[in-house]
């Protein structure tokens, strides 16, 4: 799956997006795969919301290989 990073998370990961090959996973499975590659994301886990295909993920959302996943840190538009 394609994973997008925004704002300061780009500095943490060093990139704006990456490809993650973790099969179909729930949010915990996704975070396990993410933290394995980018341990620096750990402190942000509690404040980051996940989005799947440009919609906020719910508790039951599963993230699959063809999905576009995004890590949404607290927003500050307007």
């Amino acid at each position: 799956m394609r994973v997008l990073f925004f704002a300061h998370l780009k500095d943490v990961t060093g990139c704006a997006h990456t490809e993650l090959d973790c099969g179909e996973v729930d949010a915990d499975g996704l975070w396990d795969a993410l933290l394995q590659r980018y341990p620096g994301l750990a402190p942000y886990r509690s404040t980051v919301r996940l989005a799947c295909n440009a919609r906020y993920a719910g508790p039951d959302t599963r993230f699959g290989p063809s999905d576009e996943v995004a890590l949404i840190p607290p927003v500050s538009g307007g």
Partner: protein
Amino acid sequence: MITQVTLTTQRLEELPGPPATAGPVGAQVEFLGIVRSEENGRPIAALEYEAYQPMAECEIERLLNELGSAHPCHTVQVLHRLGIVPVGEAAIIVRVLAAHRQEAFSLLARFMDRLKQDVPIWKCKAWTREELARRFHPGPFRPS
């Protein structure tokens, strides 16, 4: 409710107003959120915004539709600027046309609250005057 949502790096002040509306308009409200000359107590020259653009547009539309059923209005236009926005210029413009002012005020205030909670747009950097000058007018000599 007619909605028009635009995220752009252009100056918002120069973009056209909201599309025409069908219903009888008794209230027209315009809000400009303007970049102020300080951020966290420190003088700045500009703010830089980024967005997860397709999701931000969807979220704004979703919010407007949700708020529009509680506060029915005729037309809402949302313009949000991305990239570097100099102090004194608008980062966001929201225009609401409605039959009555109460609905327009309520929708506008609630929309701005929700935008700042849910819409994936970020102030990603505050630029000082010096940083802007170096970035956009780099001199011939730059000490290493």
